[in-house]
């Protein structure tokens, strides 16, 4: 039995080299394994010179039923094959490989990172004085986009009927003036000073009762820096962002109120600068490329995917040294059909190189786990709605 199996394997390989597999070459008994040409279609995108092919993922559980191969979701199978490898991790950025997952789910994570993870951002700006060249509404918009380094998990959403309190609002003050005879100055985002006790601006009192308690624009019951989360770790914003420039005699005095929100509402609440994934590139040399052709190939690639190795007999042979660097520019398969035949550019459909660039509120690895949790919560909501 085993000998006939290997026979059919080799004959299939020959057939595949010719570009097709005859039904007569297929084994009589389903082998639980797809023939190689179908496996290639299922797992790889072929990036040909004209267009990519096999870009779809085969999702239907019975797609290979006639071949005796089960394509349904088996969680144990998924658990055994799924793996994650971190390749780069800093405070603001991370890159990791996620292998053995469907793009539908990888994309869900990416979409959640961009649009559904909450952060704090300035939503309301109370301008007491602004004589700068930047108009109020533009200044307010610019302030809104400044990333705030505060853990959004410590805050509640401010709903319409809520009063701004220490649980849902962070208040900053900005008061900068340029001297009348001084040089022009740039107002940077680190001029925003955190007010842990809430707003300091007084609301105009309705009655003329001088004894009435002066109201401010927030109602904090306690100071935020007395809370254990903030006592050792004051709220700051991302420094070095130019908010405005002031000429001699100009002044800005304002108060900015930051609240919790999600990127769906406005991009200022997005916790990532961006987040993306790409499929792992796979570069295969279909034949040995030697001598001058190898030199040409190395020259062709703008990102240096190929390298040249010296063989014992003194000839030079091209090899694929850095497939991950491939940007799929397809420069190497551009010059005529013979080059197309020599090189196969592919992408692995279930291998994602995922990158997250955080804006600073939370480290990127925390962002990803939070994103996965949000997808879990969504599922849970649907389940509870259905039962």
């Amino acid at each position, binding site marked *: 039995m085993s000998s006939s199996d290997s026979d059919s394997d080799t004959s299939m390989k020959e057939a595949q080299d010719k570009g097709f597999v005859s039904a007569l070459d297929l084994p009589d008994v389903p082998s639980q394994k797809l023939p190689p040409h179908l496996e290639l279609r299922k797992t790889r995108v072929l990036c040909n010179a004209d267009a990519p092919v096999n870009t779809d993922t085969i*999702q239907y559980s019975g797609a290979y039923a006639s071949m005796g191969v089960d394509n349904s979701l088996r969680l144990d199978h998924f*658990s055994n094959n799924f793996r994650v490898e971190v390749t780069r991790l800093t405070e603001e950025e991370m890159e990791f490989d996620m292998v053995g997952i469907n793009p*539908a*789910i990888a*994309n869900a994570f990416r979409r959640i990172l961009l649009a559904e993870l909450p952060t704090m951002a300035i939503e309301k700006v109370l301008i007491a004085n602004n004589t700068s060249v930047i108009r109020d509404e533009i200044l307010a918009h610019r302030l809104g986009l400044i990333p705030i380094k505060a853990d959004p998990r410590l805050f509640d959403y401010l709903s319409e009927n809520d009063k701004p309190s220490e649980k849902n609002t962070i208040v900053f003050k900005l008061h900068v003036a340029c001297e009348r005879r001084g040089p022009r100055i740039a107002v940077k985002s680190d001029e925003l000073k955190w007010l842990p006790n809430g707003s300091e601006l007084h609301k105009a009192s309705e009655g003329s009762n001088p004894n009435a308690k002066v109201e401010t624009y927030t109602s904090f019951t306690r100071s935020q820096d007395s809370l254990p989360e903030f006592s050792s770790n004051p709220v700051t914003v991302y420094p070095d962002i130019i908010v405005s420039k002031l000429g001699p005699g100009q002044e800005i005095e304002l108060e900015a109120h930051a609240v919790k929100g999600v990127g769906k509402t406005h991009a200022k609440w997005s916790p990532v600068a961006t987040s993306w994934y790409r499929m792992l590139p796979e570069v295969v040399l279909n034949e040995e490329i030697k001598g001058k052709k190898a030199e040409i190939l190395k020259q062709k690639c703008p990102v240096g995917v190929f390298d040249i190795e010296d063989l014992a007999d003194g000839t030079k042979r091209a090899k694929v040294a850095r497939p991950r660097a491939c940007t799929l520019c397809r420069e190497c398969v551009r010059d005529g059909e013979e080059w197309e035949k020599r090189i196969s550019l592919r992408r692995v459909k279930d291998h994602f190189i995922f990158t997250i660039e955080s804006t600073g509120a939370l480290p990127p690895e925390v962002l990803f786990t939070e994103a996965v949790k949000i997808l879990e919560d969504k599922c849970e909501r*649907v*389940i509870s709605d259905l039962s």
Partner: protein
Amino acid sequence: MEHTSFGDQRNATFSLTEEDHTLANALRFTLNQDPRVMFCGYSIPHPSEARVNIRVQTTGDPAREVLKDACQDLMQMCQHVRSTFDNAVADFKKGSSRE
């Protein structure tokens, strides 16, 4: 959420509010991988309305149960992704601190 089923339990459309491609596409994937599902798909009736309709037609089981199982599967996958990811990050941090 509405559950519209005409006559039999096998075919149903589920209308999820406050959801978009994020959940619907992931659910469509898990549903498609279920052998009990004959057909499934989703659509967003109008782009300015936060709503998706998920259509499920099964070979015999109630569509509601099948959708529930799909959610359960997706959730378990997420849990596995999270634990694997946390381990990978911990490994990476351990490795880089040693260097």
